[in-house]
Structures are given as C-alpha cells and as structure tokens.
C-alpha cells in the first residue's frame, strides 16, 4: 500500500489508477468504461460517456425511471395523491425514503406520508388491472377528496398494456378533479433521469398554466429542481421572503400542485438541479417567454452569488440593496464558523459520487473549507451536466432517449411575456448569462478524476489510490466505504441531518465536516496505510 499522495503541486495524475481499473474488465466493457472516466483538464474540451445503459451484473447505484418520476419529481408535492399502479414493492420502496420535508398550513392537505398502490395480484396481471386502478382512484377520491391524483405505471403494467392515460382521462371526467398518468415503467430509460423527463412532461402538460392568479408580488419567481431534503427549501425560502422576492412555486420541494398551476405567472425561473428539471424551464420559456437562469444555493458564496444574480435581473435598486444587506450580514456569520472549522479540515481530501447535480454543487462547500475534491461523478447525469450545455446539440440520440416523448411546445399568445423577452435581450447585451449551465468539469481541478455511474469495483480502487478523508455518496455505498475505514457522508438524505442549503445550511455543513473528520472512531479501524508515515501536502489549495 502506498502513502498518501503529495498534493503540493496540484492533484496527482491518476492514469495508473485508471489503467488498473480497466485492466480488470473484459475488453468490450473496458472500452465503454474508459470513455466514462475522464482525467480532467479544465483548459480542454473533453468528452465523457454518460447516460448510457449500465452493464448487467455490474452493481450500479442507479435506480429506475419510475424512481426518478414518482420518487424524485412528484414525491415531495403534498397535495397530490400519488397512486402507483403495479405490484407492491415499487410503491413501498419509494415511500418517503428521500426524506423530503414539507410544511403544511392549517387545514392543508398532505399526502406525502402515504404510499398508495394498486398492489396488483396474479389475476390483474393476467386479465389486466385497469378496472382495479379505476376502483383505487375512486376510493382514493372518496377517502381524501384530493384536488389531484397522479398515476404511475411500473414495469409489469407497461407489459400487460394497461393504459393509465385513458383511465386517467376517464376518471378525470367522472370525478371532476385533475387526474393524470405517467408511463414511467422502470425499463423505459437508462436511469432515474428518464423518469425526470417524463415527470417534467406530465407536469407541464397537465398542471402548469391551469390557473391564472393575480400578481401578489413585485418580483415573482419559481425555483426549479430543489427537493427540500432535510429542510433545504426552508432556508432558501426564508432568504427570498426577507429580500421581498415572491416565490410562486418550487419544483418540487415543499410544494403544492396548486402553486404549480400558476407558476407560469412568474417573471423568472431559477434552475437548481439542471438535470432533473431543465425540460420544464425550457418549455416554459418557449410557451410563456419566461427566461431561466442557473442558480446554486449550496455553499455560502454560491448562495450570495445566486441572490445577486436575481437582484441584477430585476435591476431594482431597493431589491439590490436588500440583497446586499442580507449577504453581508449572513456572510459575516458564516465566516466566524468557517474560521473555526477550517484549520482542522483544510487540505483534506474528498470525493463525491451522487445524483445529477449534487456532485457539482457540493464542491462549492468543500472549496469554502479548502478541502480538495480529488474525484467526482454523477449517477444519472448527461454529458451537458459534465461538459456544459454547449454540447447538447452534439449529444447522440439513442434508442433510450427516443423512448421519451419530446413535447412540441408552442407559444401561448394570451400569456406570453414579450416584456421578459425584451428584458432578456437587453441584459444579455450587458453580459448577463441566461439559459446556461457550464457543467461540472470546467470547474474542477486539473487531474481530478471524473467518473460517470461509478460501480463498486471502481470505488474500491479509488479509495485505495487516494485514501480520501471523506467520501460523499448515498446509503447504498455508505457501509462499503465505511468498512474501509473512510467516513461517508450521504448527500442524498444528508445522513438524516441538514439543512445544508443557503447560509444557515453552509454553517451546518461546516460543523458536520468538523465532526466527521475529527472523530476518533476511525483510528480504531486498522487501515493498512496507517502504519506508514504520510506525506503531508501543503495546507493551502493552490489556485
């Protein structure tokens, strides 16, 4: 076992590691995996292979299309009954496992604590389950009187040919509430990502634009791709409220279908998780003329930057002053804690493999603590999330992508905001950046190892090579990594902690890192390399 690498002159070249990993694979697989592992060079345009089928038998952390549709996008919305049409497991496993939080006003509906399933049995598989589905919808309606019901198909349902869309239409007519279906069978796509797209389409088609609400604020915005894990949304909402920005709707942390219905009356869409929600942002711009910008509320600096970006968009002196005041005040608080935590964590090594945006967003928090990110990757992202939106037009459309409907969107003349289109044009001239996401790779250091859809074997090798001080991923990797004596921070569920968003969240995260990296328990685990002296790199990160 080798010593910890020397980081004085930047990150070590991981070519030997890459070779060692690939050597183990059969030739065909090695060829494919090779393209999904990139030794980063921010000065060059590098291509990564992403959003392709996982190889059978290689243990992936990816979930299925249904997980992305029901679990991720619609799961956190509280006033809709999400009814899963299929056998019991698919529904059970998505039962509030993502720890989304929601704040229910007095007398408001909250169905996210339920898991509804048609629990298909043998006879439904053989003779079809539509009748049972209709009964289940009627029953859910009678029991809860919800304003909307979403129906999600799982794999067996797609196979036996139950048509959830026609059942939805029929029941919508019968019950007079909004009912819509999603063909989000697990086999439809490469990963959760396909489900995000399907969910985006469904929400856009059946929800957005249903009610025109009078303006309630001077600056109306939507937040897209924020799921309120561990209370993140509450932190962000508090900032908007103080600044006087009216948050109409979030897709979909702490959200309601009701608020999504008037989301088209916003002046700006802010996109947080680009992967899961950029479709809605794009479609809303086409239909209503609402521009979108990429924001990030993970990390104190990023939060301040995002807030200022919104203030710049509206160009209102009072708003700008208020935002500056908030940022100044909060950054001072953050700095106090950062100063305390930094000395004990500076120069440590982190790696992160999660989701479709978190692996990028969290790098900002680590940078604030001078923790080095040596390797990172997404579970279900596409090339644009790695390389930036500039590559979208060159992404190859494969069979899996073709599987998902691309909605044809046309201008809604009555609601189209010409004024916003003009505003966008003017701001663009002064260098304001719209509809863009630069991706993760250009913002990572040279020689950082970027890996898409990492598997167990690669994880093991990576840990052996880098000996990171903290590994960020999810529950599925947690105990594998911890068995090796490396603490793992869950960035899907936050290890039941959080919030980590915005200024307050950054403080929580700093303290969490201090706790994780300072604990003595790992010293009890006898890792082989502990017997050899470490080469200690310099304690600052070179720019």
């Amino acid at each position, binding site marked *: 076992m080798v010593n910890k690498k020397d980081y004085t002159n930047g990150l070590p070249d991981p070519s030997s590691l890459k070779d060692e990993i690939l050597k183990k694979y059969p030739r065909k697989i090695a060829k494919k995996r090779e393209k999904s592992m990139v030794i980063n060079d921010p000065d060059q345009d590098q291509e990564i292979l992403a959003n392709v089928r996982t190889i059978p*038998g290689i243990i992936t952390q990816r979930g299925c299309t249904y997980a992305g549709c029901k679990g991720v996008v619609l799961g956190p919305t509280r006033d809709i009954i999400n009814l899963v049409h299929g056998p019991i497991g698919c529904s059970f496993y998505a039962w509030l496992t993502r720890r989304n939080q929601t704040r229910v006003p007095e007398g408001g509906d909250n169905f996210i604590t339920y898991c509804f399933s048609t629990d298909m049995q043998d006879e439904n598989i053989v003779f079809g389950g539509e009748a049972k589905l209709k009964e289940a919808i009627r029953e859910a309606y009678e029991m809860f009187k919800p304003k909307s019901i979403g129906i999600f198909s799982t794999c067996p349902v797609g196979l036996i040919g139950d048509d959830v869309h026609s059942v939805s239409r029929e029941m919508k007519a019968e019950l007079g509430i909004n009912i819509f279906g999603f063909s989000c069978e697990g086999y439809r796509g490469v990963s959760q990502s396909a489900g995000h797209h399907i969910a985006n389409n469904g929400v856009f088609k059946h929800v957005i634009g249903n009610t025109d609400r009078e303006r309630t604020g001077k600056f109306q915005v939507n937040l897209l791709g924020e799921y309120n894990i561990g209370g993140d949304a509450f932190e962000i909402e508090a900032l908007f409220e103080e600044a006087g920005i009216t948050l109409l709707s979030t897709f979909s942390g702490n959200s309601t279908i009701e608020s999504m219905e008037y989301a088209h009356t916003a002046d700006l869409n802010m996109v947080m998780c680009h992967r899961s929600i950029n479709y809605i942002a794009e479609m809303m711009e086409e239909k209503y003329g609402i521009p979108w910008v990429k924001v990030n509320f993970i990390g104190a600096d990023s939060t301040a930057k995002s807030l200022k970006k919104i203030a710049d968009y509206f160009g209102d002196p009072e708003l700008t002053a208020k935002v500056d005041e908030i940022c100044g005040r909060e950054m001072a608080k953050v700095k106090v804690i950062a100063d305390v935590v930094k000395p004990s964590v500076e120069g440590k090594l982190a790696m992160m493999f999660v989701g479709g945006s978190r692996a990028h967003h969290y790098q900002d928090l680590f940078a604030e603590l001078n923790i080095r990110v040596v390797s990172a990757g997404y579970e279900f992202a596409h090339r644009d999330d790695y390389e930036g939106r500039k590559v979208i037009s060159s992404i190859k459309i494969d069979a899996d992508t073709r599987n998902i409907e691309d909605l044809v969107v046309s201008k809604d003349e009555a609601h189209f905001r010409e004024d916003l289109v003009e505003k966008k044009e003017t701001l663009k001239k002064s260098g304001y950046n719209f509809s863009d996401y630069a991706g993760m790779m250009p913002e990572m250091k040279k020689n950082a190892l970027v890996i898409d859809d990492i598997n167990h074997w690669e994880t093991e090798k990576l840990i052996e090579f880098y000996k990171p001080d903290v590994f960020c991923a999810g529950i599925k990797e947690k105990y594998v990594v911890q068995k090796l004596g490396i603490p793992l921070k869950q960035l899907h569920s936050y290890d039941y902690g959080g919030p980590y968003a915005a200024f307050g969240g950054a403080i929580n995260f700093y303290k969490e890192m201090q706790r994780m990296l300072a604990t003595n328990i790992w010293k009890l685990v006898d890792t082989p390399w502990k017997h050899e002296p470490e080469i200690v790199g310099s304690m600052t990160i070179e720019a």
Partner: protein
Amino acid sequence: MTVLTQILKNMLEHAPIIKSTKEFTATRNACKLCAPLGASIAFKGIRGCVPIIHGGQGCATYIRRYLISHYKEPVDIASSNFSEEATIFGGGANCYTALDNVISQYKLEVVAMATTCLSETIGDDVNFYMQNYRKDTELKNLPHFVTASTPSYQGSHMDGFHEAVASTIKTFAQAGEKGRHINLFPGFVSTEDIRQLKQLLSDFELDYVLFPDYSETLDNPIWGTYKRIPEGGTPISQIETCGSAGASIEFGTILNQGSLSGRVKSKNLSPTGAAFLEKEFGVENHRMPLPIGVKLTDVFFNTLEKVSGKEIPAKYKGERGRLIDSYADGHKYIFGKKAVVYGEEDFVVAMTTFLDEIGIDVVLAATGGESGKLEEEIRKYCPERWENIQAKNSFDYEKIHDWCLSNKPDLFIGNSKAYYIARELEVPIIRCGFPIHDRLGGQRIKHVGYTGTQELFDKIVNALIEFKQDHSPVGYKYM
C-alpha cells in the same frame, strides 16, 4: 390489447389464478414488501453467494437500498438491468451478461437468481437460461447456480424468502446415509437470533446445518481491507447433507402458504425446504412457531431434547427460570394492557402467543400476508383468548390506523413502519422484526429463545413504565 398481452393471456389462461383475499382495492401504506427482497435475504445466507435479480435495475437498487438501511452493511445484489428491448425479446442476453460479469468480478461459490414481476410477466425461464449458460460458456470452474421464482404479484417478501430457501434445498440436498446431524430452518429472524440459535445447538452438542445463515454476511465486523464477498453463510457442502440429516426443525407454521405456494408449480409440490426433505428423503420435520415466549421456546427445547437425546443444559434452565421470575416482577406494569402486533405472519403468531402468555391483551394482530391462516393459527396457540384478538390477514398500515382510531391501544409491537400511528396516538412502540430504519442495531434485536424473550419482555415493561413516568405529574424515581 397488444400482441404481447394476447400471448400472455393465452399462456396464462390455463394456469390457476391466485385470487387476492383483500377487501379494499388500493393498498395504503403496505405492511409487506416484495418477493425478491425476501429471496435476496435468504440467498445472502449461502456462503460465497451473490444474488442477481432478474428484471429492471430499479428493483435491485430499491431492494439493496432497503436492506442496507436495515442491516447497515454493504449488500451486493446485482441486476440484469432490463431495457425496453429485453422486455420484448426476453431477458436472455441480459441474463448471460449479468452472469459473465458477476462471475468475473467476484470469487464466488454460488450465483443465485431471483425473478421479478417484470421477468415473470414476460415469461422468462431463468432455469433454462442458467442451463444454457452452463452449456455454452467457456469459463472454467463455474460456481453453483440456484434460482427462485419470485413475482411479487403472487406473494410478499416472506413468500420470496421461503421460496428461495425451498429452492436452494431442492437444488442441492442429496440423499445419503442417515447422519446424526439435524437441519434447522429458522425462517426470517434477526442476525443476533441466528447467532443465538447456533450457540444453542452447540450447547446441545448437536451437529447441525442452519440455513439460511446470514448472521455474518449481513452483520459483519469492521474490516480495514475490503472483502468483496463477506465471510459467513451456510456452505453448499453443508446444504448437500440436509438430505441425510436425522431430523429437521422448521420455524413458522404459515410459512409460504400465502399466494406464492398456492400456485401449482410442478417443482413446487412441497413448498418449504423441510417439507421437501421429509417427502424426498424421509427426514422427519418438526414444524413449530418461532420460539418467542416461554411456551413456544419450551416446544423448541423439548424437540431439541428429543432429537439430541440430551437433557436441556443447566444454563438454559437458569435462563428460563429467570425469565419467569421477571414475568412475576413485571406483571403489575403490563397486565391488561392493549397491544397491536403487526408484521410477517409467523412473527405475528409467535409474538401474539408470547404477549398472551404475559397477560397483555393483543387487540389487533395484523399482517400484510395473504395466507388467510392467521386467525386459525392464533386460535391454536392462544386457545383461551383468541376470540378477543382481531387477527387480520391482508392488512395495511392505514387499516391498522383506522382500526386504532376507534380502539386505542396502549402500545405497538413491530417494525418501524407503524411509528407514525403510534406517534399520532401518543403510545409507545416496541421496535422489533423488520424493517427497522429509525433505531441503531435493528438487525441485532434478539427475539428468540429464553434470552431473546427476556430482552423483549424488559423492553416492553420498561417502555410502559417510562410512559407512565413521563405522563405522571409527579417526578417519581421509584416506579
């Protein structure tokens, strides 16, 4: 209707259909999980085994996720990652690639494949695939293969568990000269329970095969260097000797007599491993409920005395005596308290019997299982009070919830999933069974034997004392 459905219909029309016994249409907050999850747990109890779930990758990922958060251990389960293509042309190609990769990545002894709703619906025959693979592959030293047919529309995680156990026994058990060893099939118990049981059999100086033994594979010590396949598990060489054992002991009286076994499958005339061994090899089977509580543990010990020809060791007499002594001490705190018990069917039967024995009134005994036999079994083991016990098959948490609104119990006994009801009613919940996601050590909870019962008993009494203490206006330190 698509062509595929038509074919399917024709194919399945002649097979007997399992009718659900449920009254409600929708399941709200299910009190059961799905079949390949149970099969995966059982397969994890074979030494050197990596389970593969044949179907969409979501099933495997969800199941891993669920097991990992209960066991707090790495749980490697591979998937054959169906694409839309595979659903049309069959999952053969995916199955072979998965086998190739699992075999080349792990130094494994056994590959175990469980099917899903998806692969079963399209009629994939994994046994056939496995045979083909064996014929066609160029790989040398192939591991053993075993499969389990586990569509969740025919049964819950318990059915899947027992199906995997039965299938493993049917695949590997061999005839042989009668030995002196015994087989123990403990069913779905905790890792600590398994460790207990092994100790107990050793104390009776018995040679034994305990299957499935996931006491280590799903509850490992910390490592330091990574082991791709965790140590532990029942070796195939031992499972082979099940056929020549002197006797089998099988915990559970309902087992997989739910939907799965109701479907007549040619290979499946004996639904459980022990039943198969009795029929094929004449290994006498002692079937009994899980040994929880004095009465049911006595049954187990009596059987052990019989099959070992040895008297119960003094150590256990002591345990039993202390347990009864504590019953006497704790009685005043618990007598007449009303409990709701829920979970897997055999777990519910044993737990109800134990609670009945200590004077707690089980008012509702509920399960998501669909055997329709819960009431019958409870009647058998709680002959005096069964009429006051609502025994409910095919229940979900919302039905439990609704029921409790008009019949408020004093405590809940079962897994984490009813926490929300207990919280709403402001009564304590004693966590045991599966899954436990909101406490540390859920996988290590002890349930069986005199000491397992002792721990449960203390927990129950203390929870009720704590409840009383917390709700008293006086801060009593003596209770």
